Structures are given as C-alpha cells and as structure tokens.
C-alpha cells in the first residue's frame, strides 16, 4: 500500500502522466465524435475537457502541474499554425480565377465578425478581458489564441469560444444561407468557413466538395486577416 502511494507521488510529479491523460481523453473524445457520425455537438476537444477538468479538480492538481506534461502537446500549436500555409497554398491554386471575389468577401466577413462581436459585447457591458478573448472567435483556434495572448486576453477562454462558434456556425450556417436564398456552393462554403473556421469547414465538406474547398480557403484568409487587422482595430478602438 505504501509502495502504491509512493508510485502515485512519483507519477504525479512527472510530465508523463498528464501528457498521457491529455492523449487518452482526446482519443475518447474522438471515438465518441466518430461514433456520432461527426456530429459537431460532440466535439472531441470539449469531451476531452469534460474528462480532464474534473479529474484535476478531484485530485487537487493545479493547472501549472498539469501543464508540465501537457506543454509538449501545446508546443506543437506554433508549427501547426505555420503548416496551415500548405493547405492554403493548395486551395488557392484551385481557385485562382475567382481570387478577387473571394478575398473581398472573406475580408468583409472577417471585419463583420470582429467588429460585431466587439460592439455587441461592449453594448452589453462585457469586461475588456472578455472582449479581447471574444473578438477573434471566428478564426481557427491556434491563430485566435495567439492573437488573444498578444492583446492580453485569456487564450483558454478564446479556445472554448472559438470551438462554440465553430459548432454554432456548422449547425445554423446552412439554415441561414437557405433563408437568404444563397444557393451558390462557393458562396455557401466561404460564408461557413469565414464564420466558423475548421469545424465549419469539416461540415461544409460533408455537404459538398466545392463548398468544403472554399470553406477551407476562407478559413485561411480569415486567419491571416484577423491576425493582421485585429491588433490594429483594437489599438484604434481602445
């Protein structure tokens, strides 16, 4: 018995346990997500969080201790962001002929996403911290977290708001587009990709390949536009 508690003390201090916990929880989340036919409500990241947070709270593990192990996963966010250049380049090659229309549409959508979130939040008396964390919500998570961190918001809050935005856009996006009578697959893809990044893109691919390609492209352009423009808008507004 004594031996067991010694092993426990040792493992709790080593990064191995929390790294493993992160991977196992995500795998469970991914398994459920696949079992539900990629239903956006069963997002693997959300499921992983629902598994990990209570375990940490019950075992009285601090986030700093957890991060000792999880940092190895977290570090890969940077290289993954750089790697987004590859799909962006490949998708751009496919749609060169409508580059102007695409860029203008996504840029307009990107500004709408940032400004409407900031202004509505402000109108409802949100704190500055919450506003910064909310502003990049339509951008793909690694980029959104980078922006929030730079502007002094809470990257972890951004991570969850981005995911919720993705789920929401994937669910209601097709309904809004039907309501507006937008049948053009390119426009549908761009709209869903701009508003709800990777989660929306995955949904768009399920509907139609053209829509999926355009959604992926919109996600990339929106990430670039938000990363470059939001800090400027923020300085200008506050």
């Amino acid at each position: 018995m004594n031996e067991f508690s010694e092993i426990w003390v040792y493992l709790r201090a080593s990064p191995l346990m929390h790294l493993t916990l992160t991977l196992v929880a995500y795998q469970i989340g991914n398994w459920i997500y696949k079992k539900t036919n990629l239903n956006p409500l069963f997002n693997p990241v959300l499921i992983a969080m629902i598994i990990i947070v209570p375990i940490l709270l019950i075992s009285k593990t601090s986030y700093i201790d957890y991060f000792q192990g999880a940092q190895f996963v977290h570090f890969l966010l940077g290289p993954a962001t750089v790697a987004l250049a590859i799909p962006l380049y490949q998708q751009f090659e496919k749609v060169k002929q409508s580059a102007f229309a695409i860029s203008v549409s996504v840029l307009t959508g990107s500004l709408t996403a940032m400004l409407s979130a900031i202004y509505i939040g402000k109108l409802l008396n949100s704190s500055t911290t919450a506003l910064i964390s909310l502003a990049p919500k339509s951008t793909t998570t690694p980029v959104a977290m980078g922006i929030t961190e730079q502007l002094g918001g809470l990257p972890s809050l951004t991570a969850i708001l981005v995911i919720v935005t993705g789920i929401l856009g994937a669910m209601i996006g097709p309904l809004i587009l039907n309501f507006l009578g937008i049948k053009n697959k390119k426009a549908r893809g761009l709209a869903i990709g701009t508003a709800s990044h990777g989660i929306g893109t995955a949904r768009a691919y399920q509907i139609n390949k053209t829509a999926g390609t355009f959604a992926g492209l919109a996600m990339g352009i929106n990430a670039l536009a938000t990363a470059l423009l939001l800090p400027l808008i923020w300085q200008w507004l506050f």
Partner: protein
Amino acid sequence: MLNSLTLILCCQLAGEFTVKATGITAPGPVIGMIFLLIILLIKGSVQEDLETTANSLLSNLSLLFVPAGVGLMLHFQLIGKEWLPITISLIISTILTIAVTGLMMVWLTNNNLDETTNKHKTDNKKESSN
C-alpha cells in the same frame, strides 16, 4: 520529414524574430505562415515530404487545443459573471458573419462576367508550375 519539420520551425522562428524586431502586432507563428506561403508561391509547388509532415501536424490539430482549453478551469469566475453577454454577442456575430460573407460573394459573382458557374467537376489539379 526532418527536412520539412526544420523548414517549418525555421519559418516559425523567423516569424517570432520578425515580430520582436519590428514590433508588428501579429502572432509570430502567423508571420511564419506567411513566410512559408511566400516560399511556396516562389517555388510553385509543394514537395511531397512537406505535404506529409503538414498533414500529420494538421490531421490532429484539435488535440493541440486541449491543454489550453483545460486552462478554462482557472477562469470559472469570469465566465460565471459574463456568460450572458458573451453568448449573445457570439450568436449574433456568427449569424451576421455568415450572412454578410455569403451575400457579398453572391453579389460579386453575379457582377463578374468571366466567372463560370457549375464547373464543380474540374477536380483535376492543373500543375501551373514551369
């Protein structure tokens, strides 16, 4: 694999360096992404090795958000206080973004004569390099 990973890390490092050196307000990895994009545009093609490495990083992209997401446990208080305004602006903003982007694209496409519609089957990748 190793070559490509080195290239990606070099781009990221150059991005971080650029941000610190010039005071540009953008995340370092995003600037690194722009550098890699410029390299690809100059080369005019993506090497298979680079594509494989990028795919292995991006195919499990969601996993990489988990550690940061768990950090939410530090901010339960803020969320408890502000969940309503956050939720309302998130919902309205998402609806507006979808509507504006979709309508803008339809409007621009209808005003553009060289835009050919219903050519969805052209999936054959035309290599425009060289």
